């Protein structure tokens, strides 16, 4: 085996020059680019993570809002139900009051009508009984007593 020393040293120098040139013009910049890409991807991953968290947060908020809306709707319905049943009760109460009032009025009317009728009837009965009595009397009493009677009536009428 024969070593050509000139080749040895030339190779030494050539490789060092090659190394420096590659480092300066090729690998240095390329490694920088790769580093930048790494950072870019890292940044994008972080971004994605943030977006995901935000989305989850928004979803949670939406859920809460929905829950809130449901609760409000339920409350409103409950309130409406309560109002309506109260109104119904009121109406019924009013109706009852009205009905009883009407009934009372009717009873009063009936009473007064009855009283009137009784009064009228009494007058009628009085007149009729007078007539009947006068008819009966007319037949039984003679002219003398009749005259006496007429006079008595006339007297009564005149004193009045």
């Amino acid at each position, binding site marked *: *085996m*024969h*070593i*050509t*020393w*000139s*080749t*040895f*040293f*030339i*190779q*030494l120098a*050539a*490789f*060092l*020059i*090659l*190394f420096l*040139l*590659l*480092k300066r*013009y*090729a*690998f*240095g*910049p*390329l*490694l920088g*680019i*790769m580093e*930048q*890409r790494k950072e*870019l991807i890292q940044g994008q991953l972080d971004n994605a993570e943030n977006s995901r968290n935000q989305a989850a947060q928004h979803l949670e908020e939406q859920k809460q809002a929905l829950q809130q809306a449901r609760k409000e709707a339920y409350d409103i319905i409950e309130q409406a139900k309560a109002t309506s049943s109260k109104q119904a009760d009121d109406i019924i109460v009013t109706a009852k009051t009205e009905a009883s009032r009407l009934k009372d009025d009717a009873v009063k009317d009936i009473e007064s009508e009855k009283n009137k009728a009784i009064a009228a009837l009494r007058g009628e009965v009085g007149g009729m009984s007078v007539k009947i009595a006068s008819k009966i009397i007319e037949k039984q009493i003679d002219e003398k007593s009749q005259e006496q009677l007429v006079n008595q009536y006339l007297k009564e009428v005149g004193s009045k």
Partner: protein
Amino acid sequence: MDHIFPVVHKWGIEFDLAAIFMIIVTSIIVLVLALVSVRGMSVDKPTKMQNFLEWVIEFVINIIGTTMDFKKGKPYLILGLSLIMYIFVGNMLGLPFGIATEVHHGATIFGMELDLGGESEAHVAWWKSPTADVAVTAALTVIVILLTHIEGMRRNTKHYFKHYFEPYVPFLPLNLIKEVSKPLSLALRLYGNIFAGEVMIGVIVSGLGWVGIIPLVVWQGFSVFVGAIQAFVFVMLTMVYMSQSIVHEEKH
């Protein structure tokens, strides 16, 4: 006739022109590949070539990650990338074809006389894998091993000097042998694999002629595999040695 490499002498130093040429070619290919890949690079819309280079980076990151904590190994990422691309491209270059010229005694190149090793006529091979030259792999290894020692001393000082005497002081020679064997095995493994692959290609081509096309294709396919594996192994071992040197294992 065997192929020889175009060797010239200048200022009393021996130069292997083919090796130098291939070192330059490989460096330029790696550099152009990398520069084309990062041209028009962007964070969110990577081009195909950018994706390819990023895949290579991920690959080396994984290699580092299997040997040590990546935070500690990050400074060696670009070293590993340069190594794996250079060695892989180098390993591949010798496979598809060869360029050989027939020269006679007294031929010159760039005004310098070719050393034909005393022969009057020879085939000179101009194209080969740079990693099929032991000087090249040795240079890469020296860079790596020196760096592991320097980083060990710098980042793990106490443990670095202590580990030569572990578990007991008499183990110092064994530990020294271990330190020497690391670069040797690293350099020779790569060199041996690639050189053997090229020798085998040469044998098939010159020995079998046209009949050798099928075994040649098979062997070249295998060599692609070997070349990729060797590039991977070289970087893997680099990172293993580095982690051994800088990471202080806590004893429980």
